[in-house]
């Protein structure tokens, strides 16, 4: 369990009740049929609850519950995981956080205010295709032209890329990483839908074929976005792991309940020591995941020097043990656990999807070693 202030508890329970009412698990399978995977009105009402304002400072039109905006957002993400809820939580918040910190007055008056109200949604086009698909590798070119930039390259997979109103594009220019905020639609990049595991999430492949974008679409300074991309990555990964904690919690609670009520050979399933010991391991994985996620969120909130180390430790751990936990819950259920009718797969899809995006567990482990080695050299 996360530690929460009273205000945070109240805020979280409002989101929890809303999600329970608006996206009950039985209805989630229907979202597989919807183009965006969620309903625009649902998202707009969520934005009214504060889902898009938490990592946006008050002077930019946002507001956190606790002065710990990242932790507040992590609590929303946790509830999203607990309900396997749909919606562009990650993309909209990453873009809103970026606009609030580095956006021009025009960018804040336009895209940011639309994101805050929930009228618009965001997506982050960061990941690229093989052979430069590893975490942090950005090869897409941004070439300066007379009145702006030309973007050239492929971004994929882009979560929420099909229906996002605005896209944050991370590219490499002559002077270094540069970010752009571009409208999604006619005149924008070519967008192709991808197949995906998570039924409520939509992914797209973006092709930029020397796409011209005006200078006004640059976010912050051209060539000066390395630190910003680093912080946004850590923010996004924190949202991911918090969401996974929620999905893990649902799976474990549901499976403990099942093991208490399911009888085999005249005894509850959960009375067999072999089964109990596996539950003990799962409980350890869950509590360790909470613990490191909390520290990661705190480090991103306060921009601590070891921020990225804690975030990568969280992604490594939750990314490796989250899927293991839900898979073991499937095993405890037996055949019913791999059916379409049982809800478990909704949560399995969520943890597996998050584990694979924005750096695999192994990539984050390798990143930890690189940070560690750099620190050794520095000292």
């Amino acid at each position, binding site marked *: 369990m996360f530690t929460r202030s009273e205000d945070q508890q109240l805020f979280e329970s409002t989101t929890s009740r809303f999600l329970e009412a608006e996206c009950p698990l039985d209805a989630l399978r229907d979202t597989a049929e919807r183009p965006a995977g969620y309903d625009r009105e649902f998202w707009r009402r969520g934005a009214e609850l504060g889902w898009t304002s938490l990592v946006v400072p008050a002077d930019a039109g946002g507001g956190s519950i606790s002065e710990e905006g990242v932790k507040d957002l992590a609590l929303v993400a946790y509830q999203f995981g607990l309900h396997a809820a749909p919606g562009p939580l990650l993309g909209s918040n990453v873009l809103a956080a970026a606009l609030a910190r580095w956006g021009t007055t025009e960018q804040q008056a336009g895209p940011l205010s639309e994101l805050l109200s929930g009228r618009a949604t965001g997506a982050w086009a960061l990941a690229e295709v093989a052979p430069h698909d590893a975490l942090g590798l950005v090869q897409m070119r941004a070439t300066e032209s007379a009145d702006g930039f030309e973007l050239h390259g492929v971004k994929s997979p882009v979560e929420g890329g099909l229906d996002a109103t605005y896209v944050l594009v991370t590219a490499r220019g002559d002077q270094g990483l540069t970010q752009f905020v571009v409208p999604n639609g006619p005149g924008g990049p070519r967008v192709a839908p991808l197949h995906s595991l998570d039924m409520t999430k939509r992914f797209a492949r973006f092709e930029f074929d020397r796409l011209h974008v005006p200078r006004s679409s640059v976010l912050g300074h051209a060539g000066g976005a390395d630190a910003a991309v680093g912080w946004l990555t850590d923010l996004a990964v924190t949202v991911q792991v918090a969401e996974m904690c929620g999905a893990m919690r649902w799976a474990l609670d549901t499976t403990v309940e099942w093991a208490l009520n399911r009888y085999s050979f005249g005894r509850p399933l959960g009375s067999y020591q072999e089964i109990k010991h596996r539950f*003990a391991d799962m*409980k350890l994985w869950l509590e360790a995941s909470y613990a490191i996620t909390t520290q990661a969120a705190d480090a991103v909130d306060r921009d601590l020097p070891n921020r990225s180390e804690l975030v*990568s*430790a969280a992604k490594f751990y939750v990314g490796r043990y989250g899927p293991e936990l839900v898979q073991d819950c499937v095993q405890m259920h037996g055949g019913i656990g791999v059916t379409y009718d049982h809800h478990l797969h909704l949560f399995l899809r969520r943890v597996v999807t998050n584990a694979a995006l924005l750096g695999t567990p192994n990539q984050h482990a*390798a990143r*930890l*070693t690189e940070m560690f080695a750099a620190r050794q050299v520095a000292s």
Partner: protein
Amino acid sequence: MNERAVESVEDFAARARSWLAQHMPRAADGVGGFKGARRDDDEELAHLEHCRQLQRLLFDGGFAGICVPRAYGGQGLTPAHQAALNSEVRGYELPDTQVPTMTPCMSVILEFGTEEQKALHVPPILKGEAFWMQFLSEPSGGSDLAGALTTAVRDGDEWVLNGSKIWTTGAWWADWALCLARTNWDVPKHRGLSVFMVQIRQPGIELHRIEMLNGSREFCQEFLTDVRIPDSLRIGPVDEGWTVVGRWMYHERTVAGGSPYVTAPAGQPAVQLDTTGGPPALLPVLQGLGRAEDTRVREQIGESLALGLVGDALTAHVAEQIRTGAATDQWAALIRLWHGVAAVRNSTIAFELAGANAVAWSDEERRLGQTGVRFLMRQASCIAGGTTEMARNAISERVLGLPRERRVDVDVPFRDVPRSSSPH
């Protein structure tokens, strides 16, 4: 009453900082805390003498027993003060004899001892004059503590102890032990136990040192034959020793972090296995061999680094849950399980990183060779201090609420409970 206003944590931390800088020797490795390097007996005894001096230094400076009442030689402060001290001590030498002396042994005395017992036994501990050990496990079984066969029979104002204890670290050099013994064979097992304070070097106690597969001779077995001790050395009521053991085990679990009686650099557990042989420490060696660029090597070292950070986070998280009452102290079993499985992973990773040099090495390759010996000892981290199986029982039954194991030994007199035909 001489009521002193409690010093603020900030003032205390500032005072500790300047006192440490003036009086405490700096650790050679710059980190401080506890080291587990193997020594021969002479070196070990010299090291223990050094630990006694360090403890005395802390005592004389007013930094021993932060949470121990002033009446027993402590400082009468709070866990927050201890935590503040722990944040200041990194980089200084500290006595590595605090476990099990300070906790669980002193913790148990503070919790269950009479005024006289506390006044008599706690000050020597804080002054570094007495090292304590635990006479707990027996050859008949390590996990089933309540199945103790060592017997104490009352004889006037004395008790006569007979039996054998095992896995006592450092009994050959320690002074005192907390000893669990059976005082009644005619009641169910948990209701016939008592706890005693036993001086280790006395007539009737014979010590045997056990050689482990890695050559270590830290562990001892003790044979008790007609050992006579006064009733004033009994801790807690007769036949109610199991209540004492419950808290004893709780304090032992806090050794991994969160004990208010242990002074150790913050973020570092009080007892560390294999600090020098952990996978991250191998990185320079692998760099020297030109293998550090290998993706697999980076992933494995990264896994070990992640486990370090997650373990620290988990320890703080569980301690916080217990402190605020959001969780029962049974949750400490999560920390015990973590340390077991994380140590196993680290040992395995180090072994794999070393490759062939883990099993055959030259003098120059000694660092890699050590990983092989440590790998052979790997399971010790899941056995010593309560097995991980016991921790998993506690988590599943006491934390998750799954059904308890069926017991055949609870409602019958202990003398009727089936036992192994031989204690081995």
